[in-house]
């Protein structure tokens, strides 16, 4: 059971899951860095993205790339609206207020999707080329797995370039460090925050597509745990650090997959509990996470 190929298989699965968590963590930390908001609604954007793709590709029958683009767009717009309507008013207030509101927004979005799409899960059939089975040295995977990892890495690279090289990206990093100092150099904080939301939400939406493509099924409640686990990933990797969020995502994906893969079978249902135990351990032992900066826990 612990043969080389089994281990390799688990690691592969862990990397794929980790890529998705890393993307989610990235999207979440962009907003968290500036607003100190754990956006529970982030999970709803995953669901929204998945359903948008479903609607456009499977129901309307539009081409694949167009459906992807639409998914990104819908994610971005939703993110912008969330900021505008839900959070802007509460900025500057206590973090807990933002958290409660984000919970409310999550419940709203999840149930709106449930209402529009019925509570039943939907079969998610991405383009055939993604479903092709591959076998390398005894390890089986499908093209979609490669797609997920490659696209995730591309997005992360693009993002890293964005925050390093572009004016807006640098402004985002600056605002994340200090909103007040950012204002002193003339940065329009509202604009920067809106951008952060849009980017993070678009990434969440595309992750929703990936999730559906990998697991073959989407449901109105698929996003919640993903959203919460994204926060766990951020904590593990280090609050306030963008590379940390991504590292945290990969670690979380690997730990979750390997734990389920190597513990006795009955433990598979404990996967969520394992994730949270990891969170609590990190919070107690090394609250700043792996790459963490100083933020009081």
């Amino acid at each position, binding site marked *: 059971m612990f043969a080389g190929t089994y281990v390799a298989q688990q690691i592969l699965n862990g990397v794929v899951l980790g890529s998705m968590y890393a993307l989610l963590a990235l999207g979440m930390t962009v907003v968290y860095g500036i607003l100190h908001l754990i956006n529970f609604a982030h999970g709803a954007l995953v669901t929204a993205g998945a359903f948008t793709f479903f609607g456009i590709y499977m129901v309307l029958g539009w081409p694949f790339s167009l459906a992807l683009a639409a998914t990104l767009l819908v994610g971005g717009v939703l993110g912008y609206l969330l900021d505008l309507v839900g959070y802007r008013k*509460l900025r*500057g207030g206590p973090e807990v207020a933002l*958290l*409660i509101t984000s*919970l*409310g927004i999550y419940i709203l979005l999840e149930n709106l999707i449930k209402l529009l799409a019925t509570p039943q899960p939907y079969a998610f059939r991405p383009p055939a080329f993604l479903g092709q089975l591959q076998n390398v040295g005894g390890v089986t995977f499908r093209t979609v797995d490669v797609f997920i990892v490659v696209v995730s890495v591309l997005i992360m690279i693009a993002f890293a370039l964005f925050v390093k090289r572009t004016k807006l990206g640098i402004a985002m990093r600056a605002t994340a460090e200090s*909103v007040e100092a950012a204002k002193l150099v003339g940065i329009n904080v509202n604009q920067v925050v809106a951008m952060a939301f849009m980017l993070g939400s678009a990434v969440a939406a595309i992750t929703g597509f990936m999730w559906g493509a990998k697991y073959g099924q989407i449901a109105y409640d698929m996003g919640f745990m993903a959203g*919460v686990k994204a926060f766990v990933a951020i904590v593990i990797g280090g609050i306030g650090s963008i590379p940390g969020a991504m590292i945290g995502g990969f670690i979380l994906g690997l730990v979750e997959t390997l734990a389920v893969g190597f513990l006795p079978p009955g433990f598979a249902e404990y996967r969520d509990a394992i994730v949270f*135990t990891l969170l609590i351990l990190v919070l107690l032992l090394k609250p700043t996470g792996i790459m963490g900066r*100083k933020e009081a826990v």
Partner: protein
Amino acid sequence: MRRWASLPGEVKFLISVGVLFLVLFVANSTLNRYVLHVITLIGIYSIATTSLNLTNGYTGLFSLGHAGFMAVGAYVTTLLTFPVRLRIAYNLPLLPPFLGGPDYHWPFLPALIAGGLVAAVAALLVGAPVLRLRGHYLSVASLGFMVIIATLAKGLKGLTRGAAGIQAIPHYTNIWWVYAWLVVTIYVIWRLLNSSYGRAMLAIRESETAAQSQGIHPMRYKLLSFVIGAFFAGIAGGLYAHFARSIRPYEFSFSMTFLIVIMLIIGGAGTLLGPVVGTAIVVALKYVLKPVEEGLGVYGLVEIVYALMLIGVMLWRPEGIVGGVNPLKFLFPKKGGKRNAGVSHGEAHGP
């Protein structure tokens, strides 16, 4: 009106309780079973919400794990009161000798209290590590513990029958039990708040560092409020189990936690009656809207309304419906709180 206000608190309390039970008596004799059912449910949830109020509203610890303690209370109470012959039929364990032996099952009241106590102990164990965290770290960590408890309930099949849950629980809960316990809960919290413990808790809510500099050990008081809150949550869980007559692990998960949080915030955290008002509104709303939901086939309508109410309250009236008498400077200050750490931890950069 003036004469009322000038009466000592205890007397006012007793009179209110008397009036309450008079009303309940009339209601019990006249109203139909369905309405009584709803009223009882409101009472049960009120206990849960009020107990959460102690931790969240008054001490400012935003715990999202309350449903976990309800689960503990529900399961413990049930496992103690379950009739012997049914245990064998349902594959539930018989009681060990020190708990009365295989031929025994507990009467309701002691079982309830036991459920509450076990929940309190769980809170002590969970609280010691988790309460050292602040703000949303606390929230997510407590959420995590709730997931862990729910997963355990699913996993320890020999004890809890796993995901299938326990059914055919004896119907012990009635309107008197529930409201008697609600009165007790409110009384305990009221007395606590008006004591030195209560003042310490409020001080911690306002600013932990300031409280520390006054010689208050935050951890002690945080734990106290967390544990007492959990005790009554356990009671609520036990009452719920013997009311709904069936419990499953997934019932005590996110949905229930959010439900209680919504009831608390809408009613008004940090006020004594806010939780009850919020609970009444939310539960009543459910019973009014459910038929609409089913009739029109719009599943999720009830939750959408709840969510809109929560968001609305957060944006425009964060003190809740009852609030405003005791402005909640911690949870919901007027705009202008410091950005970098949230109001109460403004100066603090330590745990």
